[in-house]
Every structure is written in C-alpha cells, then in structure tokens.
C-alpha cells in the first residue's frame, strides 16, 4: 500500500482519469481497512481487563457454562466478598499507597535537591558525582537485591514501611531527568534572587521548584506507577500479609490451593483499579510522564 502511495504522484499524470479514480478509491479503502484493523487491535488490548471484570462479577456456574462469553449472564458479588474476607484489602491498599506514595514523595525531594546542586551549584567533584549517577542508571535493583535485603534485615526493617521505602527513595533516572529540566531554566532568575539576598535553599525552594512543576509531575507519575506495580521488591522485603502490597499479596493468594476464580479476579481488579481510574481521568499526565523519559538531550 505504501509503495502505491509512493509512486502515485509520479504516475498520476500519465494515467487515464477512470483508472485514477479506481486507484484513489482503492487507496481510500486501504486507509479505511487499516483504521478498522487498528480499532479491532485496540479493543483486543482491552479484552483481558473486560473479561477480568466479568469473571469477578459472575457466578462460577455461569463461568463454566459460558466460558466464551465476555460478560456475565448471572451476576454475583460472591467473589468480591470472598476476597474481602480472605485478604485484608483495606490494609493492602493502605500499604501500597504508603509504599508508592511515600517513596515517590521522598524521591522527588531528594532527587530534586541533588539535581539542583548538579545543575546550579559549583563545587569540586561535580563531574565525578554526575558520572557516578549516570553510571548507576544501568544497574537494576535485582542485581543488588541480596546485599540490600541483608542490610534491611540487619537494620530490623523487614516487614516495615521504612524497609520498603528508604532503600528505593532515590533514583538516578529522576536525578538525571530533573537536572536536564533545571538546566533549561534561565540562570537570570537565580541571579536576580541572589541579588535580593536569597540563599541556595531559597533559590531551590522559591525559584527552581515552582518552575519545575511539569517535570516533577511527570516524574511523580512514572515513579508512582512503577512502585505501585512493583513486585519482586515487596515480595522479598515483606513476608507477613499485613505488610504486603497489592501485587505481592495477590500472588500469595493465588498460590494457595483451591483458588476461587471470581475472588482472584476481583482481587486483580481491585489491585489495578486505582491506577486505571487515575489513568482514565488524567490520561494526559500519564502520557506526558512516560513521554518525558525518552525525550533526548
């Protein structure tokens, strides 16, 4: 199709009018078909989620009778009440919020201070610090998880919020992205503030941070999403169900024998719901957040 389009303008002058019409119709048809295919593909992406909701809200008998049906024939809230009985969902939601939210807020604070120093202050060893931070960009935490686990263990922080939060409260990627953003803010603003007697902290707090809201919002979204969905880390740092996050708790429930499918899918739906709803309400923020990670320079 694309080669047709490529040669079309060149050939157009030599082709008789009726043939040209046919070609144009064929091209239109191709475009319509490709849009139709895109629509089907887009809906197919969502099928697992629709089906998950359906299974959570139907009776087991209905599921066995009509496995090919995406939507319930017999509605039931038994799965929801079963999962609410078997897992401390309020607590798990709280844990996930505290872990993802607390870590992200600390991370934004620490990373923005470091990025400020790297982008705005002169000190000996700045390039060495920057080099080390960029170097750690490539190190996934899976690589260091064993000694980090031991450190958390020796601190007595297993099964605690501080154990979940503190080791993850800075990120090389965050420092790097914020530094790039800060570098683009004109230094005239700092100079003006300094002439008025502002110190470094005031420049950071009153000038740089307020002007960096878009970058901070983007970083918040990507970090919160990554931590909310994190699995291996809470799996290793917590063992009691009361301290687990939603993904780690759900798999614990899955591994128990004689799984209640409706309950399991209800649990999955509840785990996914907060971020999914946030995404539906503020799609732009998510897209901007993710897009900003890849923007060059």
């Amino acid at each position, binding site marked *: 199709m*694309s*080669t047709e389009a490529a040669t079309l*303008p060149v050939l157009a002058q030599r082709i008789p009018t009726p043939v040209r019409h046919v070609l144009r119709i064929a091209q239109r048809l191709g475009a319509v078909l490709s*849009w139709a295919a895109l629509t089907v*593909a*887009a809906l197919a*992406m*969502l099928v*697992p989620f629709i*089906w998950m909701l359906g299974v959570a809200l139907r009776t087991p008998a209905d599921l*066995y009778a009509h*496995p*090919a049906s995406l939507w319930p024939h017999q509605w039931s809230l038994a799965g929801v009440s079963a999962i609410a009985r078997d897992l401390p969902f309020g607590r798990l939601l709280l844990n996930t919020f505290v872990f993802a939210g607390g870590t992200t807020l600390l991370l934004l604070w620490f990373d923005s*201070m*470091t990025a400020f*120093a790297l982008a705005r*202050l*002169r*000190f000996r060893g700045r390039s060495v*610090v920057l080099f*080390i931070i960029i170097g750690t960009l*490539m190190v*996934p935490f*899976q*690589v*260091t*998880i*064993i*000694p*980090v686990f*031991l450190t958390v*263990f020796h601190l007595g922080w297993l099964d605690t919020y501080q154990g979940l939060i503190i*080791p*993850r409260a*800075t990120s*090389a990627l965050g420092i790097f992205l914020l530094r790039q953003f800060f570098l683009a803010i004109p230094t005239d603003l700092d100079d003006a503030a300094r002439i008025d007697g502002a*110190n*470094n*902290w005031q420049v950071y707090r009153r000038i740089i941070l307020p002007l960096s809201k878009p970058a901070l919002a983007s970083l918040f979204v990507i970090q919160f999403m990554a931590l909310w*969905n994190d*699995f*291996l880390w809470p799996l290793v740092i917590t063992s009691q169900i009361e301290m687990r996050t*939603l993904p780690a708790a*759900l*798999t614990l429930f899955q591994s128990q024998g004689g799984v209640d*499918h409706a309950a*399991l*899918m209800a649990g999955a739906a509840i*785990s*996914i719901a907060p*971020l*999914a709803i946030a*995404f539906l309400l503020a*799609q732009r923020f*998510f*897209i901007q957040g*993710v*897009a900003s*990670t*890849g923007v060059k320079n």
Partner: protein
Amino acid sequence: MTVTSPPHSRRRPRWNSAWLFMAPSLILIAVFILEPILQTGWMSLHEWTIGEDSHKWLGVGNYDRLFGDDRFWNALRVTAEYTVAVTVLQVGLAVSLAVRLRRTTWFTTFVRGAFFFPAVASLAVIGVVWHFLLDPQIGLVDAWLGALHLGSYDFLQSEALALPTLIAVGVWKYLGFSMIVLLAGLQEIPAHLYEAATLDGAGRLGRLRHVTLPGLRQTLLFVIVIATINGLQLFDVVYTMTGGGPVFHTESIVMYLYQQGFVYFDLGYASAIAWVLFVIILVVSAVQLRVLRVNDVD
C-alpha cells in the same frame, strides 16, 4: 579584590551547601547501590549462609559451579530468547503504531489510550489474569479458539508454547509504553523536513526511511535499551504464570536468582548469578549504545 577581603566576611563557600543538597541521594546511592554491587561481588566468592558470622571462602568456586550448571545456562538461554523476541516485536510494532497514530484526533487518542492501558497495570497482577485467561478449561482464549475450531492448547503447560506465550504477554504489556515514547520523539522531527522530502519526490516509504527513522534514532536507541534491560530482568510473569515451568522451560535468570537466594538461601551462589547478570546488562547496554551510535551520520 576578593583575595584581600578578610576571611570572616566572605560568604560561606558554595561547595559546602552543594554537598548538603546532595547528601540524602548520595548516601542512599552509596548504601543501597554502590556498596551492594561490591558486596555482591564479595559474597559471590564465599559460601554465604544467612545468620552466620563467618563465611567460608570459596574463591571462584561459585563461578566454577555456575558455569557447569545446566540450569543456569538454560536460564540464560530463556532470558536471551525472551529479551530478543520481546524487544524486536515490541519496538517494531511500536514504530508502526506511532507512525500511524501521529496526528492527534479523538480516534488516535482512543487507540493510543487502549494500547497504553496494559502499561498502567502491574505485570504480576496481569500475570495472574493471563494465567487464568489461558486456562484450558474455563479460560476465554481456549473457548474462543474452540469456537473457531482452532483446537485446544494448554499454553502454560506446553514446553513448546510456554515461553512464546510469556513473550506475547510481554509485548502486549510494554507495546504502548514504547509507542508513547516514540510518539514524543516523532513530535521533535521538524515538519519542514517532511515538506522538503515530499518536494524531492519522496513517497510515504521514502519519508519513513529518510526522515522519520533517522529523526527517531535517539528515541529508538532509548526504547531499545529500556526494552532490553526490562527483558533481561524478566521475573514477574514467570513467577505468576509458570513458576519457571514446565520443567524449567521458562525459568529466567532473575527467577533462578530468586530461587537460589530467597528459596534455598544460598546467598553466595545467588550473588554469583547477580554479578553475572550485572556484567551482561552492562555489556549489552554498552554494545547497543556503540552499535546504534556508529551508524549516526551527524
């Protein structure tokens, strides 16, 4: 002038407060990233059991054992196959989607949102859903295949199909992420380049080859590196969908590391696996950066 001014009237030197600003991040990076990398290396040279004060020095014993361990080589192969397949499929599909969804209309906004949606959900939770979706008795996939007379498959219990199934789920999950990053990259290509190419007689394919792909090089590099690093860390879906089975056919490096470290508590051996993974990630990233930069015309 400043040299002659008395020291006590001078403002406090700037480096002092810079280190204060960086202290929290630098302490965390030192304690939870740099030191653990070294400690992983140190531990990998010992027989390390949790709760004991002294650890038996093994030298390269763990590495000797590792390189003779079929289960390790298998995990390496599984991880490599998964990483290559997911990266190629994900990035290839994401490029073709991004090019098609470039203009912003209500329709493209919906399609982009739908493709991105799986990226919002936890991979572990998605693994739980897919595990059940692929169930040969009551799963939707089996029911729909049956309705189309395409046969019945136990995807996750089949030695031939288990890994390709995980690959498909991986592509489904990360496709939208790559697409969004590539769309952002597309916005940065100046429109006049397309106009110039069209004036020079370039068709759609010509513009893709000579304007879009070169303009996207940096973004593509980023997306490929991220997809590769993600692939090498394969764990969540293995844990929730197959547990590494059938018979280790989907056991990844991180899964094997987790098993050795947190199930068998053989921390020295697990550290050796982690160290090898670290070296692999560094080498692969460095090679990708080099290869994709070498072609750079600028």
